[in-house]
Every structure is written in C-alpha cells, then in structure tokens.
C-alpha cells in the first residue's frame, strides 16, 4: 500500500472541496469522511482566531465578520512559517495591499503594520531605561556629540495616512480622521506597549539615532524632514516612554 504523504494530507486539509484521502479510515471499516474535517476545522479556526486576536485595530475597524472573510484566503495563502504563533500575520500588510475587495480602504496595510509592531514591542527584550537626569546633566555641546541608545521595544511607523487618528477611532471612539499623514511611536515603559502620535521629524530623528548617528546629526535629520520639528517634544516622548537606554559620550 502506498503510504499517504504529509504533502497529500496537507493539501486535502487546506482545501475544503478536496476529496478525503482514501487510506484514511473511520476505524469501523469505512472511509474517514467528515472525521477528516476535524483537522480542517482545527487548523482554520485556530489560524482565524490568531488573526482576530493578533490584529485588534483591524478587528475594531472591520468587525469580526469582515476580518474572518479576510482571514480565510489569507491563511490558505500564508500559513504560519514558524510555530511561534505570536508572530503570525507578518505577511498580512502585503496581502492587504493586493486584496481587491478592500482596495478602497488604502490605509488598512498600515493599520496591520501597526498591530504587528505593537505585538513585536510586547515580546521585545527588556532593557533598563536611561534616567532623564543623566541627559539633563550634560552640557549642550557634549549632548550634541553623544549617541543615544534605543530600547529594543521601541517601534516607529511612518504613514501617509492619519494613522494616529485611525488608532483613536478604533480604540477610543475618536472623531472621523482628517486627511493628513501621521507617524506613530510605540514605547513600552513597563510591559504594555503604548502608541503615541510622533510629531513631524520624529521618525527621521529616531531612525538616525538607530543608525548610530549623534544627537546633533539626528536633529539635523529631523529638521531636514520637518523644518519646524519639535525636538524637545520628541525627546520628551522617548524619555517618558523609557525608550532610551543609554547615552554614550564621544571622547
């Protein structure tokens, strides 16, 4: 008897219309029939639940029924690539970009990226935050040349959509978003990630710090992006969010 390959099992499992392989039996002399559906259901229900729980902002915006309808083709095209289910859905932003039925909601891929980034932040490594007094004690010319280290749980999302207002609408019944571009900063002061509206220039500032540039160079990057960048406000968000872990003084 030819053994049933796991490839064949998998194909039959992922496609509800496929025939149940003949070598699967019911234990009473008959074919397995709908017993096989137990596996089909377990996998589909489990992955759909993972999408519903893993994308709370998409869920709030679309509703359970619509998100389930999105999850069904998504999980067939992109089953998890690892047993770490808390990472599941990494392919959803790109999938949404090409998903015709929701193409008119162009901001959804950014919303999916935001939900993924919140999860990444939740599971990121712990770090001891920098005492704000350490920065305050530095003479301005020393601070300008210093390197600021970012916490592993920090995430920055650039968006050409009003992503912060969309977040407020989804989770706090905010007003209808005005059409403008908004970036988001995620910090994790304790164990719970917090999204913040990141003022213009902030993304450039933080990305420059992440690349190892000095505070002065990073400020330059911020001003290049937004001439009126509010650098004290951006630095304040980072310090309050425990998002800086060290200041390294150039010698």
């Amino acid at each position, binding site marked *: 008897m030819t053994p049933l390959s796991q490839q064949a099992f998998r194909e039959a499992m992922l496609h509800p219309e496929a025939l149940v392989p003949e070598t*699967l039996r019911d234990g009473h002399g008959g074919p397995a*029939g709908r017993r096989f559906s137990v*596996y089909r259901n377990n*996998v589909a229900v489990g992955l759909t639940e993972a999408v519903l729980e893993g994308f709370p902002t998409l869920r709030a915006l679309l509703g359970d029924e619509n998100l389930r309808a999105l999850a069904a083709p998504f999980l067939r095209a992109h*089953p998890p690539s690892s047993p770490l289910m*808390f990472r599941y859905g990494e392919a959803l932003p790109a999938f949404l970009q090409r998903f015709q039925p929701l193409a008119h909601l162009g901001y959804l891929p950014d919303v999916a990226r935001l939900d993924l980034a919140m999860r990444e932040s939740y599971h*990121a490594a712990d770090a001891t935050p920098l005492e704000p007094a350490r920065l305050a004690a530095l003479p301005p010319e020393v601070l300008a040349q210093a390197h600021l280290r970012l916490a592993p749980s920090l995430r920055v999302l650039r968006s050409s959509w009003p992503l912060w207002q969309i977040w407020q609408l989804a989770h706090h019944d905010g007003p209808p978003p005005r059409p403008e571009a908004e970036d988001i900063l995620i910090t994790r002061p304790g*164990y719970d990630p917090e999204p913040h509206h990141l003022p213009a220039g902030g993304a450039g500032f933080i990305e420059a710090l992440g690349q190892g540039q000095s505070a002065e160079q990073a400020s330059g990057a911020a001003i290049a992006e937004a001439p009126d960048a509010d650098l004290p406000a951006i630095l304040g968000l980072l310090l309050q969010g425990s998002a800086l872990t060290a200041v390294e003084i150039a010698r």
Partner: protein
Amino acid sequence: MFDQSSSNLPPRPGVGFKAQHYTSILENPAPVGWLEIHAENYMGEGGRPIAMLRHLAERFPISVHGVGLSIGGEGALDSEHLSRLRHLCQWLNPASFSEHLAWSTHESAYFNDLLPLPYTSTTLARVVAHVDQVQEALGRPMLLENPSSYLAFAESEMSETDFLREVSRRTGCGLLLDVNNVFVSAVNLGLDPRAYVQDFPLEKVGEIHLGGHDEDEDDAGRPLLIDSHGREVADPVWALLDHVLALSGPKPLLIEWDNDVPDWPVLAEEARRAEAAQQRVTT
C-alpha cells in the same frame, strides 16, 4: 541514549498555566503544586510573558510542554526551533520537557494542530531519530505524549501502544499518558480504552494529562469526540484515570483547560478532583 522514564515533577496535581490566572495562582495556589507551560508562548525576547514565567519558576516546578516541534513530521526537525527550545530549557531548567506524537510542520509551513501519523516501521524509525535528536540537543530525557485520534490510517502496521513502547525502548524517552486522549481515541475508533491502558507501558509514564472533550457525530451517526480542552474532564475519563492509577501507582497529574478558560476556582476544583484520585491510590 537516555534512560530516565520518570520526570522530576512532584506527585501533586498541576495545571496548564494561563496568564489570566497569574495573580490567583500566586495568592492561592492550593491544591496545585506545579505548572505546565506551552513552550512556544515563551520564545519571545522578553516582556511580560518571560517576566511572569521567571517569577512563577521561583515558586513552582515547571513542566515545559512543546506543541510545535513536529516530531512525527516527514522532514527534518526545524533546527532553529530546536535551538529555541534548548535556550528555554537552559535558563528555566524545567522539571520536565514533553512533546507530542504528531506532526504540524511541512516544508516550513506550520499548522497549529497536532496532525496524525500512521504506525509503520518507516514512521517508527523517523520518530526514534527525532526523539534522539531532541534529547541530544536538550541534554535531557523527554516525555512523548499519545495523541487523540479521529481517524485511522489503512497503512498502519502496529498498534499505538506498541509504537510508543518501541520509541521509548529505543530512545530511553519517557511517556506522557493523556487519559482523555485514550478515551477520545477509543470511542472514535471503536476500541476498548481499558485494553489500551493494559497494553500501555505504564512504567515509562512520567506524567498524566486530563482535559475536557466535546461530543459530535461522524457520517454514520456514531459518536465523534473532539479533544477540545474547553470544559471539565468528563466522568468516564475520571473513571479511566482511577483504572490507570490502580495499575500504575501515583503519577504527576495535570489538568489542561486551554479554551473558554474558566476562573481560577473552577480550575482549582478540577485539580482537587485529580488530587482525590491520587490519594485513593496512595492511602
């Protein structure tokens, strides 16, 4: 080759840990003496899950239960995942590590379920090689758990109990006997659960699982039990546990409740029932 069939778990009831019970467990754990975690939920870099686990591990023996290694898979084990397990076992130093006789990964796609395999000389050789590899990588013996079955493979050449006995004999691994799985499989495939237990190498059992199941029907209207872990352990499963313990003597017992998770007192009550079953064979 490892040769340690029993785990280091205490002979008290344990429960599968759920984050919503964290505070209750720390304040009022009785009668629970140890906790089991799903390994894959603690493989992030840090954050609350790891902090909770570190804290719990200071107070309770921990059993690490893997659900994603795909020991019954046709392909090679995922070496990255094996490294993550090794890392977890190194810093946590758990009292026990267990995994399933099942597969879940095929060509790097992971299916979040425990999928069945036929019992043949080919699959036996593969499972033995995988268990050897896991025990070498972790530097400790593991327990292998019997699955719940909804169907059978025409190509199977041996019984599940013979298959598990042979894996244990060749690798030195211990076994995890899930009594609910025995009951579910027996009802689904028309077998006698007590005969299964009779054939099971109970001397190799390092842990016993108990969980709830749902009831459905197959095409012919016969009962089809689903291993759902979403309710209390059913009465016939408790009766089967008494039968097992009468034959095996006391074993570490664990309540699994993974879906529709109840408040702590309900779960603690299930653990009390397990404790009572344990006491019936120790006094």
